[in-house]
């Protein structure tokens, strides 16, 4: 029961809302937990046990870290001088590091086993094949949302280790944080303090939250059903039959897939955030007009923000402040100068982030390439920044002049489209085949001549009009006009008119009905 299906939207969500409201305040978090496990069971069946075990394990590690911390403080209180205190701290720090390592390794180990082991075996078999031997593949069931809840669990353990907040004593409450039903399939990846208070508060439903949540959900459905799902017929056809197309069709495939992915993922996140909001839970935002970005780095600050923040907090920063990088920076400054030290430090911190970002999306060389593609582009951006600034100053150019901004946005689009071309290609080889075939036999007119039957004129109209509407709303938001806020603050007749307009636009122009193959959530597969 995915979050965009009628079963979720018309039955499950309303039912949970009613039960939640009828339940006593103290039991409401329990209703949410039961609903979360029920939804999880509906698509991953007994693998819910793995989710439960992960929750219990994470909870246990948190308590262990807390206990070590408490014992350390007790021992320190008995100490008479600073030196003794420092030695006690060192002794307990070792235990804390051990607890952290056990926690992170077990969680990432499960993720590795489920997501990556067969990929590794597959690649080892290519080498072993030459020696005439093969390793058997492992039969693995994919637990829905494992990439999302694992990162939340690792983040929680790291934060408790860094004493950003105390460990949660209540197992059920931590289990709810890791399994909250709207976000289990596609995120956003939250940090414990982001949602924990609201999840456990058990506040009654109120009209303001219901209105906000409802508007967010129907807006998400509009993006997904009117535009994204229609585009998926085109992209599935073009990427699936990539050898039959070249030139302008490949560019069209890359652009179409990027729009599809954005509207599908941001639309689903709208449904997720809207569902959470109905219960008074404010989930972190995941998108902020990514196509207004003027550089690849800015794009990643606006696209899948919760994943980017996770890597920034738990990979990038820890590496940047690690003794190894600090030492290297110090030495490099003396040896090669400030500029090269900065480039080298950036490379050392960015490399693991982008390897991880790439493979987080899936076990495949194309995903690793996708990560490395952005690593190279971002590092190039870092290296070029001082040179760019100097050049602007030399030429007397204002970097914020509109045409330069537009050029930078267009350049970023080219980077994004190219990245998504590889991301959605059947495999890395197909990605290169598609990329190089852009430059062969390029005729814009072939789009009209060989337009695939997978998508009709009506679909194209719906996609274009729907995309323009989404773009206008995003454009206004980028320029400080909060359309959603204005609708929510309007008088009821106006507000309801907008609701009906969106609902009937979905019902009339949405890709649904018998015969339509429901389009699965793309990020639910990661």
């Amino acid at each position, binding site marked *: 029961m995915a979050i965009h299906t009628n079963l979720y939207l018309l039955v499950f969500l309303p039912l949970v809302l009613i039960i939640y409201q009828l339940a006593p305040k103290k039991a409401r978090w329990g209703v949410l937990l039961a609903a979360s496990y029920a939804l999880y069971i509906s698509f991953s069946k007994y693998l819910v046990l793995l989710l439960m075990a992960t929750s219990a394990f994470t909870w246990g590690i948190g308590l262990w870290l807390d206990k070590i911390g408490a014992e350390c403080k007790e021992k320190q209180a008995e100490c008479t001088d600073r030196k003794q205190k420092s030695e006690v701290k060192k002794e307990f720090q070792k235990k804390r590091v051990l607890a952290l390592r056990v926690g992170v390794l077990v969680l990432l180990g499960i993720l590795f086993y489920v997501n990556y082991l067969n990929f590794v075996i597959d690649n080892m078999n290519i080498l072993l094949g030459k020696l005439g031997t093969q390793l058997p593949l492992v039969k693995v069931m994919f637990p829905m949302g494992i990439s999302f809840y694992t990162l939340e669990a690792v983040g929680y353990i790291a934060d408790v280790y860094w004493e950003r907040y105390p460990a949660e004593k209540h197992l059920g409450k931590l289990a709810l944080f890791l399994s909250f039903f709207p976000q289990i399939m596609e995120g956003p990846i939250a940090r414990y303090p982001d949602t924990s208070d609201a999840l456990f508060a058990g506040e009654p439903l109120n009209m303001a939250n219901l209105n906000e949540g409802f508007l967010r959900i129907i807006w998400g459905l509009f993006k997904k059903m009117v535009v994204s799902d229609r585009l998926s017929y085109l992209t599935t056809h073009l990427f699936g039959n990539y050898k039959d197309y070249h030139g302008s069709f490949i560019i069209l495939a890359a652009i179409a897939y990027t729009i599809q992915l954005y509207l599908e993922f941001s639309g689903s996140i709208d449904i997720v955030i809207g569902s959470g909001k109905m219960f008074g839970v404010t989930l972190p935002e995941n998108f902020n007009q990514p196509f207004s970005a003027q550089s690849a780095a800015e794009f990643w600050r606006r696209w899948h923000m919760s994943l980017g923040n996770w890597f920034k907090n738990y990979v990038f920063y820890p590496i940047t402040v690690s003794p190894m990088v600090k030492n290297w920076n110090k030495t490099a400054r003396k040896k090669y100068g400030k500029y090269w030290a900065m480039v080298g430090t950036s490379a050392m911190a960015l490399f693991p982030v982008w390897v991880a970002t790439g493979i987080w999306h899936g076990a495949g060389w194309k995903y690793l390439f996708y990560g490395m593609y952005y690593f190279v582009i971002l590092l190039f951006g870092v290296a070029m920044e001082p040179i760019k600034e100097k050049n602007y100053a030399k030429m007397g150019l204002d970097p914020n002049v509109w045409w330069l901004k537009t050029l930078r946005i267009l350049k970023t689009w080219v980077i994004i489209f190219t990245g998504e071309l590889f991301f959605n290609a059947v495999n890395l080889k197909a990605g290169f085949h598609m990329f190089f075939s852009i430059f062969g036999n390029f005729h814009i007119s072939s789009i009209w*001549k060989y337009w695939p039957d997978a998508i009709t004129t009506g679909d194209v109209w719906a996609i274009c009009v729907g995309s323009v509407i989404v773009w206008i709303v995003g454009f206004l938001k980028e320029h400080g006009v909060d359309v959603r806020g204005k609708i929510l603050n309007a008088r009821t007749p106006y507000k309801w008119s907008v609701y009906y307009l969106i609902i009937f636009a979905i019902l009339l122009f949405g890709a649904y009905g018998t015969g339509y193959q429901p389009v699965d959530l793309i990020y639910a597969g990661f």
Partner: protein
Amino acid sequence: MTQDSRKSIVKLILFGGITLLALVIASAMMKPTKWFDEKLIQDRNARTVQMMEQPENTIDVLNLGDSLSTAGFSPMELWRDQGYTSFNIGADGMRMNEAYYAVVEACEKQKPKYLMIESLTLFRYAMGQDLQMLLSQPLYHRFSFLKYHNIWKSLVEEKGLMEYHRGYTINQNVWEYDGEEDYLNLNVGDSNSKLTISALNSMTFDRIKKFCDERGIEIIIYSMPSAKNYNQIRIDAMEAFAKEKGVTYIDLNEKADDLGIDWTQDTNDGGDHMNLNGAKKVVKYFGNYFRENLNLTDHRGDPSYSDWDEELVEYDKLVEEMDGKSYLDIYTEKKNKEWDEKYNNKQK
């Protein structure tokens, strides 16, 4: 309960009520034939819409199922051979829940005597999708706005090329089946199509049967010849199912030789679906079976059925014109011709 809560509940009910009312009004307006030429509807609803346009109580046999049923049974051939009136109300990949409502809608203006169900539909099952349909199909049935919402596409798209003849589309493509001759021993089935009949499909069949029993409609289950979809396991399962439900079951796979099915000539996609050659043989078999075993009237010569004779002339003309091609071939040719004309004119 506070005054605010009461106000909120009233607002929620009012909002729901207006939505429902708007849907009812929109559905009343969205009768396909009210605003649009019925031939403009080219999606899976085309057959249902055209069925609704048939003169009242003129169809004796309904043929239900997925694409195996619609590709392998031509009502015009049955009319030519025996003078019995029939209509294909199936659709590609039809599931049992959709099938139930297809029967209900077909019987709004008709009192058929027999309902033929092609058995592959009974094997089609994927829990998630079928549970979704359990909720959506009644909604589509009650609110035609939802069912025919795609009708707006007819305004911006060119008129459809496909011609339906009482639910049959002519396909003369020949693509031989080159697999094993004894295909009943091969493996078939996938994630959407099982080897057994699910409890949900069995329950839906019971609903169809109850509906038919109340109207005196007799059900006949049959399996279309299809090397890609049938094997002995499925045929045995269907035989047991039909026995359990007390309905007649006819398997045409075991009778394929008697029917004279030539797998090099009678299939349009390598043994999956029948083409017109195959459909003629299937209809010939059923024509004889109906004449010998069922109580059907030969309507040929009856002036109130003259539209069938007129359509048969059109049907035969189209078969000749298509000259062994499929609609897709004709569509591609048409598109290329249009483009060449446009491109050559521009160059001039």
